[in-house]
């Protein structure tokens, strides 16, 4: 009874998503990767991830894949967020709090402009 019982609801969500997908021209897929090692989590990466998911939801951004990764050896720059937009090169951002995350999604993922003041040069 307490399970996610409403798989029928989810089916409906799926139909809606499919419909929207065929309507909106997909403007190049993007992949957002969030560092979620111990260092990232301790630095607030979960809140960064929440901001990313909330933004995608509220702005109805389609075609964005969000995944997590472990520590990439830049603990002092955590929370770290990486963006791969279409065929473009992967950009790594450091000290990404929820506000910065929203900026990155809007300016970089949506509009293609790199948020220079948070780029980490690898």
């Amino acid at each position, binding site marked *: 009874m307490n399970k996610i019982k409403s798989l029928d609801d989810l089916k409906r*969500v799926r139909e809606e998503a499919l419909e929207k997908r065929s309507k909106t021209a997909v403007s190049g897929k993007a992949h957002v990767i969030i560092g979620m*090692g111990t260092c990232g989590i*301790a630095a607030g990466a*979960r809140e960064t*991830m*929440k901001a990313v998911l909330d933004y995608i939801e509220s702005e109805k951004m*389609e075609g964005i*894949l969000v995944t997590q990764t472990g520590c990439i050896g830049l603990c002092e720059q955590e929370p770290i967020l990486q963006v791969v937009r279409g065929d473009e090169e992967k950009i790594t951002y450091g000290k990404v709090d929820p506000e910065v995350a929203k900026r990155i999604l809007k300016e970089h993922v949506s509009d293609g402009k790199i948020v220079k003041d948070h780029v980490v040069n690898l």
Partner: protein
Amino acid sequence: MMKELSLHILDIAENSVNADANTVSINIEEDSQKNLLKIIIQDDGKGMDSEMLRMITDPFITTRTTRKVGLGIPFLKEAAEACNGHFSITSQPGKGTCVEASFQRDHIDRMPMGAIQNTFLDLLVGFPDVHWIFKYRIDEEEFDLDSEPIHKTLDGIPLSDPAVLKYLKTEIENGIKRIQRK
């Protein structure tokens, strides 16, 4: 440092993913009668031998060259033991690993559970290839979530689709709220 048990859970679950687990189950039990809070995280990842097991609970011993072993396990161990609780980790190479931490539920130093709904959602969305089984029980009330039927139902639509995200977020939040109400 972590300020919420749900952050520790996120961290330990991450270890399971890094150990190439296909299935990870997270089981949280709060029992007010027994005054106990227990967290069990079990995976079918590559596991560890006894030497490695010994090392990972000690933050001051490491042979790592890559950051395979971190501070996550010692953090959780310390947190449990500071609250009259127990910590154990068992593992078998090739079989998987099980981490168990228990706390005196009303201990003054016991961290709050925190935003467990965010931990569940992050793991679900952030590692779509892992089969997640979440169980959170407070006394008689239980919240269950299995990622497999969700993926099956979605049939190719990613979890990070805005409409799907909204659905999942609401389901998880409401589910957790319902069991935490009492």
